[in-house]
């Protein structure tokens, strides 16, 4: 059996250049892998088999003709099914959108096509990027490759599971309160929420306009950097899109952290909320490794985590209600119960609450600007617990909000999550690093330095099917794609 499915995008690109691997061969290998394993993971809602093979043939011709466009040329990628691909449905994992058909590519899809990436399929998510692992939706919830009885994090749950499970080397996620970094952490991969506006959101179904981000997920920091290179860029059709950006985010990846000042926001997980002992110990170990690599790591004080969370939630609920209010009033039964409960609070918030939250938001941005005068990077917890069982609704509700991600959706700072250990139950532990606005270069450099010193990314999940999946209780339902050539 070939191990091609564990190749990183960087390795794939090098293998293409050396004529040791072909895009068609790789896509066929991944389609086999999906066929064998996705019945247990439910990572994909739809797989664009024919279109992916067509794109692979095209990439193969170009590469053989010496026209390799760049590091993503011929590299397969999974797309969270909240992002439009022309000619395919964007279901948002919801009954509400089952009859939707995208007429245009999202901005990020156009960028990926230009880079030569192969759109392998649409990945599962929490309904509308807000719900949770629900069993009353048209598609089953994605499961964690490290233990399929456990939740893979969310809302970009399928993207995290697909990358961690070796079904695809890269995926796109979206992140409004941590939805890239949560599954990255729970599945033991790398997930980046870039600076607000660095990647255009145009063509992704919104959840909360001023908090939404799109970002890459991969098994290594290097792969995240090269995907970011392809995705970043100004879009005049997106009012939140930044006008100027760097074009080479991986330029300092191997530079190490010697001399960098890292502020450890310990109070998030030790005072404001209490992380599990394993998470806390793993974070201390990350600080030790970064010091050993030459960084100065000092404790740092920010406003309380609850302050950030309250402001983020008021904004999120208000903006999400503006989008979902009509459907919720008219078709409440078409939402999962967990989505209804998460979306309805917006109906009870007032305009004054929203404006006050946006004013408080600027004060909190100011607090971050203050600390970034003294440090180059912040280090915080990501999740405060490991992944709970997927069928334990009570534990899901209890643990899901115990996180330190949403502050940086609120402030717009770039943040990356990566694996930093394994729990005694064999589930990934993770850390979050945060950079200055538009300084993804230093952020990725720091993440890479840690990854190199503590190569947790080399650990692969055991991929044992769960009892539930093995017994066939839960069958993956996929949309069949008859169109070809659209990827």
């Amino acid at each position, binding site marked *: 059996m070939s191990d091609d499915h564990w190749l990183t995008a960087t390795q794939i690109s090098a293998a293409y250049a050396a004529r040791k691997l072909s895009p068609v061969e790789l896509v066929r290998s991944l389609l086999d892998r999906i066929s064998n394993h996705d019945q247990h993971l439910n990572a994909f809602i739809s797989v664009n088999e024919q279109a992916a093979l067509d794109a692979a043939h095209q990439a193969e011709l170009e590469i053989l003709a010496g026209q390799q466009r760049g590091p993503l040329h011929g590299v397969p990628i999974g797309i969270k099914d909240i992002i439009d691909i022309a000619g395919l449905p964007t279901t948002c994992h919801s009954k509400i959108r089952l009859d939707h058909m995208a007429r245009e590519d999202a901005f990020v899809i156009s960028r990926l096509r230009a880079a030569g990436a192969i759109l392998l399929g649409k990945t599962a998510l929490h309904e509308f990027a807000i719900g949770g692992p629900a069993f009353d939706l048209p598609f089953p919830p994605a499961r964690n490759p490290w233990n399929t009885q456990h939740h893979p994090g969310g809302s970009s749950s399928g993207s995290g599971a697909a990358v961690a499970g070796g079904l695809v080397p890269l995926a796109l996620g979206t992140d409004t309160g941590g939805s890239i970094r949560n599954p990255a952490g729970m599945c033991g991969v790398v997930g980046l929420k870039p600076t607000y506006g660095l990647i255009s959101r145009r063509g992704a179904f919104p959840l909360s306009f*001023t908090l939404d981000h799109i970002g890459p997920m991969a098994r290594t920091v290097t792969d995240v950097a090269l995907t970011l290179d392809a995705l970043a860029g100004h879009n005049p059709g997106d*009012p*939140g899109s930044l006008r100027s950006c760097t074009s080479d985010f991986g330029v300092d990846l191997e530079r190490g952290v010697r001399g960098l000042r890292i502020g450890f926001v310990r109070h998030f997980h030790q005072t404001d909320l209490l992380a599990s002992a394993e998470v806390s110990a793993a974070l201390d170990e990350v600080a030790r490794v970064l010091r050993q690599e030459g960084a100065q790591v000092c404790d740092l004080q920010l406003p309380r985590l*609850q*302050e950030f969370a*309250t*402001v983020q*939630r*008021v904004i999120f*609920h208000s903006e999400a209600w503006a989008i979902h209010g009509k459907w*919720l*009033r*008219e078709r*409440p*039964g078409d939402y999962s*119960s967990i989505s*209804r*409960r998460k*979306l*309805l*609070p*917006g*109906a*009870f*918030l*007032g305009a004054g*609450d929203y*404006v*006050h*939250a*946006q*004013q*408080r*938001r*600027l*004060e909190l*941005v100011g607090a971050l600007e203050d600390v970034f005068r003294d440090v180059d990077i912040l280090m915080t917890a990501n999740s405060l617990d490991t992944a709970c069982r997927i069928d334990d*609704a*009570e534990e899901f*509700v209890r643990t899901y909000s115990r996180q330190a991600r949403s502050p940086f959706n609120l402030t717009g700072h770039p943040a990356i999550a990566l694996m930093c250990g394994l729990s005694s139950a064999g589930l990934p532990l993770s850390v979050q690093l945060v950079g200055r606005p538009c300084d993804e270069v230093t952020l990725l450099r720091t993440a890479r330095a840690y990854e190199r010193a503590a190569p947790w990314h080399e650990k692969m999940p055991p991929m044992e099917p769960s009892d539930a999946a093995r017994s066939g209780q839960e069958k993956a339902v996929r949309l069949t794609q008859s169109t070809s050539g659209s990827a």
Partner: protein
Amino acid sequence: MNEIDPDETAFSAHPSALQAKLGRVAHQFPQDVVIAARAAAELQFALSVPGDVAAEPWPPMQMRMTV
């Protein structure tokens, strides 16, 4: 999920649910409406008033220069 006091489901007829035009959802899923209303009330209680109520909220209005 938290159990709801049966008396609280009377909230479905509460004026604020009706004002929010939640009649149908309150009728079909009264517990969800109660949980949501409680969550909103907790957020309103926790949200502190900004230090300067005259401060420009984020994001600032920007003129579109399309012509």
